């Protein structure tokens, strides 16, 4: 295969940068990583052939600086840019700047990103294409100093009806989103959402949307090429969310009947065709209890949860992204895309689920990762890394595949038992509680699942806590085993990190 691409710059960090760099290596493409000063020695920075430091830790001074990234591409002679997800992935300005600089942007055209990026315009476009949208309304723009017209907000909200969601027009990932139960909270919520949106996406425009009761979040992966081919790669259900951010995703959705699956896939393809979609994209729907579904938004990039689709289809989405960006035809026909088995992804976050999911920070003192058949870990970290407040708290994604949903759940639970990260709080135990919950096992998932079932969850089952205490006592040297020669000696070496050889002890019967 001779591609017009030779060297790809990955304009991202963490696990997704690692994922894209791996795909490039496998395709024989040279790679360039960009890194903030805090990330000079990060996993993604070490994996690339070349690494360019583009600025201080805060994203606005590094990963969001279009000029710095284009400059890195120029200096290294890169001829293509993969944006990953987040950061500049859905910036039409970035895509256009890449194109203007003579670089291949691995993603859709700037106009497509712009059209889908403004959620309000996207809603209008989809409605015009005959795709059902959630009832909602736009808000008047805030004043120059960021203040909203309170009366107008209240009037628009009354028209949409409570409960409702305030959403960032240019948002995504739950940022700049607020659920509002009644009129009293709508002004504060809209202001906070606008503030968050401005900070995260550079634009504070927000809109209101009817809040559906206990809907499921089901999305369809689509893929188009420059020859006019569009295919869909099946759905992912991403209903398990905290703070409007997905934490568990799966495919197939336990909620879809074959008929519903077909209808939703057709709607997704219609949506993609309506905007002449090229490269990987996702059409998100809300599915209500009656089986009606509504267009929510289209993400014009690779999703965090793309491994779920890779597992069930057996295809490599990043490889296809690079091929399509290079002008090749899609490597698959629709009839070659046949889902198989069941896949589940769990997002491992640096956060405290028992304390409102507040982010945790610190140094990764120890890291043990699961492996084995049907287990995949996409990780952006290594032991010794410092997890800081600067970036999204996503540490790694565990994804599994099994012959059916029950087997996939069992596999994910076993793998989570084998994941150990010490030094930084994670949601690993919380993820186990989700997967192990009877309602999850039954497939009774909806976007309020966590509030309904796990709002009062606490970590640390008593038996585990007791055993952890005894282990700490052994570690501290309180208890020692008999040595091979019968003499007693301490179980813990002077420091847990000193000494190469393992300290082996008698004890097995």
């Amino acid at each position, binding site marked *: 295969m001779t591609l017009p691409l030779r060297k790809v710059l990955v304009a991202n960090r963490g696990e997704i940068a690692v994922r894209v760099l791996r795909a490039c290596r496998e395709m024989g493409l040279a790679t360039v990583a960009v890194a903030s000063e805090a990330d000079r020695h990060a996993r993604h920075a070490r994996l690339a052939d070349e690494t360019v430091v583009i600025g201080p830790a805060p994203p606005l001074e590094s990963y969001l600086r279009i000029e710095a990234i284009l400059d890195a591409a120029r200096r290294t002679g890169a001829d293509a840019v993969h944006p990953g997800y987040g950061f500049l992935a859905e910036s039409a300005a970035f895509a256009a700047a890449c194109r203007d600089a003579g670089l291949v942007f691995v993603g859709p055209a700037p106009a497509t990103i712009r059209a889908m990026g403004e959620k309000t315009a996207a809603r209008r476009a989809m409605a015009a294409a005959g795709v059902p949208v959630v009832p909602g309304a736009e808000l008047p723009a805030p004043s120059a100093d960021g203040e909203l017209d309170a009366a107008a907000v209240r009037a628009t909200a009354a028209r949409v009806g409570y409960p409702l969601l305030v959403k960032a027009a240019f948002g995504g990932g739950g940022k700049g989103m607020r659920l509002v139960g009644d009129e009293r909270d709508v002004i504060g919520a809209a202001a906070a959402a606008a503030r968050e949106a401005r900070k995260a996406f550079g634009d504070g425009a927000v809109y209101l949307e009817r809040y559906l009761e206990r809907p499921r979040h089901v999305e369809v992966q689509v893929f188009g090429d420059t020859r006019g081919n569009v295919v869909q790669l099946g759905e992912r259900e991403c209903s398990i969310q905290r703070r409007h951010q997905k934490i568990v995703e799966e495919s197939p959705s336990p909620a879809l009947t074959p008929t519903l699956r077909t209808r939703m896939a057709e709607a997704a393809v219609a949506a993609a065709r309506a905007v002449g979609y090229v490269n990987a994209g996702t059409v998100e729907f809300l599915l209500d209890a009656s089986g009606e579904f509504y267009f929510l938004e289209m993400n014009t990039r690779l999703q965090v949860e793309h491994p779920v689709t890779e597992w069930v289809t057996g295809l490599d989405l990043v490889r296809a992204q690079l091929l399509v960006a290079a002008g090749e035809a899609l490597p698959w026909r629709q009839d070659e895309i046949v889902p198989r088995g069941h896949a589940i992804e769990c997002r491992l976050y640096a956060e405290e689920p028992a304390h409102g999911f507040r*982010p945790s920070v610190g140094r990764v003192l120890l890291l043990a990762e699961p492996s084995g058949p049907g287990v995949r870990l996409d990780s952006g970290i290594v032991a010794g890394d410092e997890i800081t407040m*600067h970036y999204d708290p996503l540490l790694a994604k565990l994804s599994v595949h099994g012959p059916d949903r029950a087997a996939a759940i069992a596999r994910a639970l076993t793998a989570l038992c084998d994941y150990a990260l010490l030094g930084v709080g994670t949601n690993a135990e919380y993820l186990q509680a989700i997967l192990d919950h009877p309602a999850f096992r039954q497939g009774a998932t909806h976007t309020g699942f966590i509030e309904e079932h796990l709002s009062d969850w606490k970590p640390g089952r008593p038996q585990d806590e007791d*055993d952890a205490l*005894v282990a*700490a006592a052994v570690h*501290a040297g309180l208890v020692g085993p008999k040595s091979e020669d019968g003499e007693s000696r301490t179980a813990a070496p002077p420091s847990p990190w000193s000494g190469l050889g393992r300290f082996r002890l008698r004890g097995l019967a």
Partner: protein
Amino acid sequence: MLLQFNTGNRLASLEVVQRDGCVLLDGRPVAVEVLDAAPGRLELRLDGRRRRVWLADTGALTHVCVDGRTFSLVRHTGDEESEDVAAGGPRVTAPLPGKIVKVHVQLGHAVEAGTPLLILEAMKMETEIVAPLAGVVQAVHAIAGATVAMGDPLVDIAPADAPPGV
């Protein structure tokens, strides 16, 4: 030899009964067999249960992962002063590093448990910090726009059932 650890849920004590096989955990005997020990890893049999354990120390803190469940145990030193702050006393401190977005309260404000005190932004998320108890704001250390480190004082509250100024 006696060890005490604060688990966050309780203060647990561990005492050795038989150096190669039994400890008292809060007075209850637990049979301990060390199957294997390597840096950062222990394989134990505790009352017959096989346990795979990962461990790491940072000073007084011992991080332990038991079959996918993680605990941060504070080695208890008897220093009651620091205990009080850790338990969430009348001083409200930053639960994580971040930037103060907005401060809702001023000196002398009466607050209930749950009253929003300020908004802290960390990892691009806004977190609302609320009063842990009813009382009167006695000091405001937080300034909007300022960056704070974990543990930095934010607001001091004089509990409602204590005389102000104490």
